[in-house]
């Protein structure tokens, strides 16, 4: 069972540096040939680049983040409900040092079409610059289904 009292909980913040080589690698892997990523010595990062915060996550928070343990999601019954990236200005450029922090934003329930209650867990990873300004957010929605999902072939 999901623990609704987990709303508002936060993980420890950790540092992440946006690196030029990583931006290039990520842009190429997502089929971009845009010179704004590949040729600029201080490129902005691609819209989904912040998933690479996983490389900076302290070992104590892996795998899946300690927040998910606190929320008590049953990972066998979890569907991915999508992501949203928000930028409060241009996406962070190579050379930017960010402080990332996970928090549980919301937990709510909906009745599923085929019976059973679905529980939506919204987590946000916030990214702040060295002055503490909110630069970007990565919002993820996990859905715990009423019963194990059938394999989608």
């Amino acid at each position, binding site marked *: 069972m999901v623990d609704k009292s987990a709303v508002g909980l936060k993980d420890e913040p950790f540092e992440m540096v946006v690196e030029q080589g*990583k931006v290039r*690698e*990520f*842009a*190429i*892997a*997502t*089929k*971009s040939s*845009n010179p*704004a*990523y590949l040729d600029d010595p201080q*490129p*902005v990062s*691609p*819209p*989904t680049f912040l*998933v*690479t915060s*996983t*490389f900076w996550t302290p070992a104590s928070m892996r795998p899946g983040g300690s927040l998910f343990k606190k929320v008590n999601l049953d990972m066998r019954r979890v569907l*991915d*409900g*999508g*992501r*949203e*990236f*928000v*930028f*409060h200005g*241009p*996406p962070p450029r190579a050379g930017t040092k960010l402080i990332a922090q996970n928090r549980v934003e919301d937990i709510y329930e909906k009745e599923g079409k085929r019976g059973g209650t679905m529980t939506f867990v919204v987590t946000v990873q916030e990214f702040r610059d060295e002055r503490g300004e909110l630069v970007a957010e990565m*919002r993820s929605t996990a859905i715990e289904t009423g019963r194990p999902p059938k*394999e*989608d*072939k």
Partner: protein
Amino acid sequence: MGVTWDDLEEGATTEPLVVGPLTRTDFVRYQGASGDFNPIHHDEEYAKAAGFPTVFSVGMLQAGILATFATDWLGPENVRTYGFQFREQVWPGDTLTCQGAVSKRYEADGERRVDLELTCTKQDGGTAIKGNATFVVA
């Protein structure tokens, strides 16, 4: 990117981005870049043991390719939001077509902005990713 405010009326589109056929190498390259090493995307035996006919793509790869379509159109510096949901799985050999259209054009907080509706579809017509984005326009 040469696109102006006047070009971006509601319903405006641009040339689709067509990518593929995707290979297992594409999946692995994205896994290395992103740090998501779930073996279901590269380990044939693991995928079959889990009941799948073969490995399948990382959802975030096609989400990233759809983002590439949008930033090629309106500029990497100009994106302000990008949201999406995963629909059908993408398999080795699939070809993806990324498309989008302006759903809203408006001014807010002293900026000119457009909202986009975005789709990434497969050659069989199935939808892989459904997304939306907001860009500022110079």
